[in-house]
């Protein structure tokens, strides 16, 4: 139980002109459980990194003080534990127990005391396997629980959680929240958590601090009071405030069949369970088909095969007007028939500026120059990317990068667009933008297939839903 204090704290990342946060004055009392809210760019992660002692002198410029129990945070690292959002890049060792032990070795805990503490921490997070379980064989939710055990084993007096469930599927997120609930009940540590999805985490905290751009204080107080008073404003800023209704955009009438998947099957060599097993579907112009199901059910495989990006073991995916199945088309022709948008937008960027990115598909397809120019300016306007026309795609914010990857896939005017987890990890404002953008594309007559865990996204847009389980269609729902 230790107090935390920011006194006139400001931080400028090396190489940036503007400060990430300016003049932050905050005090968190010993044992308090605080939810830190704010839109992207409000510096929440910077504040957590400062508390974790990760803002070193060579990584930027600091003003003011960050005090933990009255001493500078850099000297208190041993008393602080932080859980990040990406489980893959938090695990160090090949075996689960070794990974929890890693933090204890660094604390110079004697060997005979390490292993009891490892087992205790694994039990506290409900880790379902033994200490020898290979870390690469764990699901995302299990990896994140293991990372949490690694934090708890060090018995920190201050626990920091930086969007601990943002990178997980719904089941994994639920398990991690359950683990947090039991683990936090057993400790008196002060807690500061950053999370966009407020509803799920509200019962873990007793105080909410809402930040605006640059770390300015918007609101501070008990959770209910803050959300009741500032809920609408926070929702507009990108926070997922419970109770604020979400928009829905029902579809107009669907048109002709635009994509036809026939018995799509993929069996990876050396395995006996197909990743996708005999899945057939039809997709019509002007409709959005949501593909849902647990992790590993074959959703992403379906998107790859339907989009002609991988060769099916059996079956085919076709569009009207092409005799060959999509996986046999040359890439430059494929891009004029069907667009695919991946979860990580950066994988799809192939040029150095936003406008080249939009011109790329049409150029590959051999369009004349004036038609390309007209298409690029149209897309820049529609997707509000015009001010960024000459920016490097890799420097865009999450929401902008997402919009650009959709625009790039649409550039060569394909009649079909496939989206893989389009809303993954987005704040509420970007989410709303994506729903509107997707609805507009759909209502212009494009056929859309969206692989998604996001129930709200499917509810807002989908006319039909295909539920996959273990590579097969478990259910088809009409909305």
């Amino acid at each position, binding site marked *: 139980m230790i107090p935390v204090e920011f006194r006139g704290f400001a931080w400028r990342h090396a190489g940036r002109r503007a400060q990430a946060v300016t003049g932050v004055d905050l005090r968190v009392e010993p044992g308090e459980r605080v939810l830190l809210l704010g839109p992207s760019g409000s510096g929440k992660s910077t504040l957590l990194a400062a508390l974790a002692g*990760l803002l070193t002198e060579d990584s930027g410029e600091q003003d003011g003080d960050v005090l933990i129990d009255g001493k500078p945070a850099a000297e208190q690292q041993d008393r602080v534990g932080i859980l990040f959002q990406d489980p893959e890049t938090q695990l160090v*060792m090949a075996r689960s127990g070794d990974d929890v032990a890693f933090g204890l070795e660094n604390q110079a805990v004697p060997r005979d005391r390490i292993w009891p503490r490892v087992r205790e921490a694994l039990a506290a997070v409900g880790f379902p396997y033994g200490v020898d379980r290979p870390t690469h064989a764990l699901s995302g939710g299990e990896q994140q629980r293991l990372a949490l055990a690694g934090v708890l084993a060090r018995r920190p007096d201050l626990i920091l959680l930086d969007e601990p469930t943002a990178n997980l599927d719904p089941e994994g997120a639920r398990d991690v929240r359950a683990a947090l609930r039991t683990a936090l009940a057993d400790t008196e540590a002060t807690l500061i958590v950053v999370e966009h999805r407020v509803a799920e985490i509200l019962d873990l905290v007793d105080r909410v601090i809402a930040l605006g751009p640059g770390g300015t204080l918007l609101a501070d107080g008990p959770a209910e009071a803050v959300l009741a008073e500032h809920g609408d404003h926070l929702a507009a800023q990108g926070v997922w405030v419970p109770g604020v209704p979400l928009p829905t955009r029902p579809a107009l009438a669907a048109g002709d069949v635009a994509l036809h998947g026939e018995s799509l099957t993929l069996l990876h060599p050396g395995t006996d369970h197909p990743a996708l097993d005999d899945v057939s579907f039809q997709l019509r112009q002007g409709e959005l088909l949501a593909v849902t199901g647990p992790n590993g059910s074959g959703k992403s495989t379906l998107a790859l095969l339907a989009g002609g990006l991988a060769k099916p073991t059996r079956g085919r995916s076709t569009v009207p007007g092409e005799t060959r199945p999509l996986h046999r088309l040359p890439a430059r022709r494929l891009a004029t028939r069907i667009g695919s948008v991946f979860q990580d937008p950066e994988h799809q960027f192939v040029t150095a500026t936003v406008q080249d990115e939009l011109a790329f598909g049409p150029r590959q397809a051999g369009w004349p120059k004036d038609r390309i120019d007209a298409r690029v300016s149209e897309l820049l306007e529609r997707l509000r990317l015009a001010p960024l026309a000459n920016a490097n795609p890799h420097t865009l914010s999450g929401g902008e990068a997402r919009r650009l990857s959709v625009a790039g896939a649409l550039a060569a005017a394909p009649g079909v667009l496939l989206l893989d987890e389009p809303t993954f990890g987005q704040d509420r404002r970007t989410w709303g933008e994506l729903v509107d953008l997707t609805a507009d594309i759909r209502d212009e007559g494009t056929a859309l297939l969206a692989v998604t865990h996001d129930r709200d996204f499917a509810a807002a847009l989908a006319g039909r839903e295909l539920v996959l389980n273990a590579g097969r269609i478990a259910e088809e729902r009409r909305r």
Partner: protein
Amino acid sequence: MTISLAPVCDARAPIARANPVAKLTAAVAVSTTALIASDWLTPLLLLAALLAVVPFSGIRIGALARRLRWLWSAALIVVVVNAVFAAEQTGRILIALGPLEISTGALLDATAIGLRVLVAATAGVLGFATTDPTDLADALTQQLRAPARFTLGALAALRLLPLMGAEWRQITSARRARGLEGGWNPARRVRLFVSTMFALLVGAIRRAGRLAAAMDARGFDSEIPRTYAREQRMYAADWAVIAGALLVCATAVAVSAAYGVFTAF
């Protein structure tokens, strides 16, 4: 494409249980002897000794043969190339096809070179196939006092390797979706390979940065001397492995010298 460096042996076998540093020392000793000796008998004896050790390594013969297949093929190519392109053909001519001649002397020299490659390769595979990377890092830190920042850093990086295989496939698919693929044009294939590699590296560096921050947040950069959760020690058996390797090397050289064929370099 999956990249795996996990050991492929029965962990209870004597060689698998030996301290990694002992195995490393033994492998280095045998390889060095083979590389120094330039006759054919010394590496042949060393190879025989290595094969005699295989039953104690816990590696299934099939798995070992698969791992060694490419290395043995490489050694065979080394023999052929050296026999054909020897500086001078001495002794009796065995094969004569127009300008192509292979003599007994050249074949013997080439075989010696091929055997040296084989010994080094087999020793390396025996060592690594029976060693868990975690144990190797522990032993390097505890026995050879290698800095933990280096050994554990390398170990953490190793854990990220399989992710890169998956990411390579994702990037390739994402690019095909954008209309970009190599097709039959070799120049375009090379350009695409380079740009995909670049995208992969950018991702890897970003990931490595996040991993380093997570490690430091768990105290990896604190000044306190670390303790070790897993103890690695040199037992009598481990010293015996090293002594045995040295004995084998000395015997091979001595036998070869006794036969009057030993030469060095």
